[in-house]
């Protein structure tokens, strides 16, 4: 039994070593990292597979779910993405506009200002639920990755183009409009009573 085991150990080890030797000679070639969509994806079978990151990168398909991007011009500030987010990484503050604020690229009328649209990518779990609920498809996941920063706060991306002063101005405008409306209503009510 022992002799048999020893012989078997010797032969199987030799087999394994020959196999690794075969692969050892294949390392003269370098295997390129090809996009999985490419028809030649499985044509190169041998060679070094190590990718010298960051000099070269594994190609990422377009559907890749990495960095979130918001096209704020298309956003109607409906808050649906913030509601579906499982980790609450999207923070939105809206101000009602004094009237229709123009249209998005697909023709939806915007009625709210986005005073704040912050996405904390440090919290994001890259599930992609927010991109599905968005009615105007303005929030998308891009295949960009590797956005390392030195400060944690830099991972909070601010997509709103409004400065705080502008937001304050819009708020005042809204307050003024509402006050005017209120005054008009009261005046109308008084006029009714007067009759």
């Amino acid at each position, binding site marked *: 039994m022992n002799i048999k085991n020893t012989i078997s150990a010797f032969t199987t080890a030799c087999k*394994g070593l020959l196999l690794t030797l075969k692969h050892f000679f294949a390392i003269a070639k370098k295997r390129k990292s090809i996009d999985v969509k490419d028809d030649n*994806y499985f044509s190169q079978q041998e060679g070094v597979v190590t990718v010298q990151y960051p000099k070269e990168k594994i190609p990422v398909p377009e559907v890749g779910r990495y960095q979130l991007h918001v096209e704020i011009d298309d956003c109607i500030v409906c808050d649906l993405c913030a509601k579906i987010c499982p980790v609450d990484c999207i923070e939105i503050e809206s101000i009602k506009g004094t009237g229709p604020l123009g249209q998005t690229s697909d023709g939806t009328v915007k009625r709210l200002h986005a005073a704040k649209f912050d996405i904390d990518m440090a919290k994001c779990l890259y599930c992609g639920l927010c991109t599905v609920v968005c009615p105007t498809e303005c929030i998308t996941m891009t295949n960009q990755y590797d956005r390392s920063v030195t400060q944690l706060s830099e991972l909070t991306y601010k997509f709103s183009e409004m400065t705080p002063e502008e937001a304050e101005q819009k708020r005042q405008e809204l307050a003024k409009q509402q006050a005017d409306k209120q005054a008009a209503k009261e005046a109308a009510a008084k006029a009714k009573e007067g009759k």
Partner: protein
Amino acid sequence: MTNTTSQTPYKTRYEKLIAEAQSSEMILNMGPQHPSTHGVLRLELITDGEIVKEVIPHVGYLHRCFEKHAENLTYQQTIPFADRMDYLASMNNSHAWVMGVERMLGIDKEIPKRIEYIRVLVCELNRIGSHLIALGTYGIDIGAFTPFLWCFRDREHIMNMLEWASGSRMLYNYIWVGGLFFDLPVGFEERCKEFIDYFRPKMTELNELLTENQIFISRTANVGILPLDVAISYGCSGPMLRASGLKWDLRRVDEYSAYPELEFDIPVGSGKMGTTGDCWDRFKVRVDEIEQSVLMIEQCLERLMKDLKRTPDFDPRAKLPKKIIPKEQDFYLRAESPRGELGYYFITDGKSEIPKRVKARAPSFNNLHVISEISRGILIADLIAIIGSIDIVLGELDR
């Protein structure tokens, strides 16, 4: 040393074991940062020289409150969290979760066949990936470095393909209640076929290098023998249980999803190199399961390319329910994950979109229990072989 008197009640049996250790015995901490514990598992060993007297596993270092999260989020929002339980087999986790919710809603019969087949296809791809990690890291535990790199090289292709399909490499969020995130991309089936052609010879190479290697066999055969009755009484499942000789596969027993229409065998441990239920058997069952998964993928591809072809108007999200409110009930659903019986127990109140309580039965947790039973009186080096052969994923174990 703890100085305790006989009146002091010990909180646990293990505290008593540690406190009453003989002076000739040594208490050895293995982990939580030990590379061969596959994560953050801490084992306390009571050793006498090289002999392990008792193994005490400590878990909870990777606890992420999955069940609490599930009580606070809707069913749809919990899918990414279910993915993160067993991060090596995310598809299988979300498949089980989604099936549970669909059965509660009663829409499981309305799911189109194409969606079912895509689900099975990606699940089996993911199962191969998960088993490749199990085999590769087992090699590294035993002292063979090359198979580990080869397994990771092949798994890389699976991850690339699944990224192409779902958009993410590991945590897919692909299988949704009532449908899928996306349909398969154009050309995926052909690429998958090419992968099978590529993968078959690689598996033969791996078998030649590792499975049939006498050094490997000597390290694993007759080590950590798990008798069938012990396996059943400890609630082991998956390859652990099958290696002990019982043909128990939930894909056949429960016949969920598209599995009843597929032909595949259930590999069981035979004790070819030693005793039934030893570490080599557990390894071999995983190797055979990869082969069966490859067969299943081929059958799925055949159907997906012939009678269940992609049509331009096919919408994988067409059947998504607007609001997921199951009626009031207690519901348990189990499915076969690469590690064994993965179950979700739901308690719903019939009013809200959020479950009242969710319990996840993780196969790794039950499989790990048995370790103190089967590793009494063995050598420390063999303990490493046993832990590797159980194939635990700590993310699932601690949830």
